[in-house]
């Protein structure tokens, strides 16, 4: 089983390695994630960065994640394209003929998206840290240090987990919806609506549901949510939430992949 999955993952990596469209999506992800931070640092300058990082108006670490949040949604297109794209082109027929035990293909693609998302997210985190702290340092403003455990946790967890998890959810939903853009749109709406509508719904909804959404749970995992705030979950509960969402999407898409006609 492990040997078969390893072989299949290698096969799917051939597609990733040679697909111009997937590389473009990855490049767009990196450009948005890092480019926005660069623009803010360049045009806003050290003064505005220093002001945000002082923590008077929000989290001290906020400047590290400006552009990356948008980049996460670009990576969601990567995930959706990697699954739904094959249905659009018809190539999925060859994929499922080569590997008729279809859930193995799903698992192999999932491993790849989780891996690439984690690595890309980590690179984005570190590059954004270097850009923002570099600008601040050059202008003799106080800088953050990765020796701070809280910051290290945020840098290592927040954007890598966001990219990996949203990319994975998008991949899994793509097996169900079988069209790339609609997959990302549905995922986007599904992630925002419960939070945006909370103010119009009973208090119990606003105090319960948003914190269990994947994005909020990852914020808690990364230590960016404050205890007592509406989005806060203890780390263990946040981990359960993230795994739970992946399992839910995985089971539904797995059943769809297994039983629906190609």
């Amino acid at each position, binding site marked *: 089983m492990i040997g078969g999955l390893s072989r299949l993952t290698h096969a799917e990596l051939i597609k990733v390695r040679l697909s111009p469209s997937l590389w473009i999506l990855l490049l767009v992800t990196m450009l948005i994630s890092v480019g926005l931070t660069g623009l803010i640092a360049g045009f806003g300058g050290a003064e505005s960065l220093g002001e945000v990082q002082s923590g008077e108006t929000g989290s001290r670490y906020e400047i590290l994640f400006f552009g990356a949040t948008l980049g996460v949604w670009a990576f969601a297109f990567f995930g959706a394209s990697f699954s739904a794209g094959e249905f659009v082109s018809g190539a999925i027929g060859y994929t*499922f*003929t080569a590997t008729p035990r279809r859930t193995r293909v799903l698992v192999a693609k999932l491993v790849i998206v989780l891996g690439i998302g984690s690595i890309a997210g980590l690179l984005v985190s570190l590059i954004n840290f270097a850009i923002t702290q570099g600008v601040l340092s050059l202008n003799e403003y106080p800088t953050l240090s990765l020796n701070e455990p809280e910051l290290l946790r945020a840098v290592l967890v927040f954007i890598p987990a966001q990219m990996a998890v949203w990319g994975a959810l998008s991949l899994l939903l793509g097996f169900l919806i079988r069209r790339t853009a609609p997959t990302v749109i549905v995922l986007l709406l599904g992630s925002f609506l419960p939070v945006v509508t909370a103010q119009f719904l009973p208090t119990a909804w606003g105090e319960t549901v948003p914190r269990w959404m994947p994005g909020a749970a990852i914020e808690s995992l990364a230590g960016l949510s404050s205890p007592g705030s509406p989005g806060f979950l203890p780390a263990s509960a946040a981990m359960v939430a993230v795994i739970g969402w992946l399992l839910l999407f995985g089971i539904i898409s797995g059943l769809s992949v297994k039983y629906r006609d190609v």
Partner: protein
Amino acid sequence: MIEIKNVTKSYRRRTVLDQISLTARPGEVTGFVGPNGAGKSTALRTILGLSRPSSGTATILGKPYAALDHPARRVGAMLDPEALPGYLRGIDLLRWYAAAAGIDSARIGQILERVELADNARKRINSYSLGMRQRLGLAVALLGDAEIVILDEPTNGLDPAGIRWLRELLHQLAEHGRTVLLSSHLLSEVQQLADHIVVISRGTIVADGTLTDLAGEDDLESVFFDLTGDER
């Protein structure tokens, strides 16, 4: 051996296959022929597990395709050439398929020579003509040296020399005890390629036998039109 037993396939209110049965045996080339939209591709897809029958069974060597050990090594399949990923080079497609199916990639060079695509193997599939895509699809089907070979419309885009080459290839496979099942809407080509012919029309098997069984002294084309009612 490939066996379809009483397979019905319906999509909502539309029945695409209606209680069809056919057997393709080792050592012979079985031609599955019918007009466009008769259900040929749907039948082949039920054999390969890409479509689930509404009722009935489609088996290869007595088992559903997905239940075989190393299915893509035991069954070589040629699907729609238009669905081949255009961004891959021909050789990359075969490398991917070999990796995914657990087939030894050492055969790739030999197979490319056999389908006469070696000179174009390093070009992207989206630059291939239809005939080249067909040959690449055949390469995929032959890659695993499988005992069962299933080909969906293999003659599309092939010139007369290509069809003759294909005929010789298929007969070689049958002579070596392989089971070969091919589909086509072109009767003249199936006549040249197949030993055993199954005719399908509007989702129903209307004839099943050898060329002599079906046509006897008559012209096969006339027999075909009589059976299918397709005289467009």
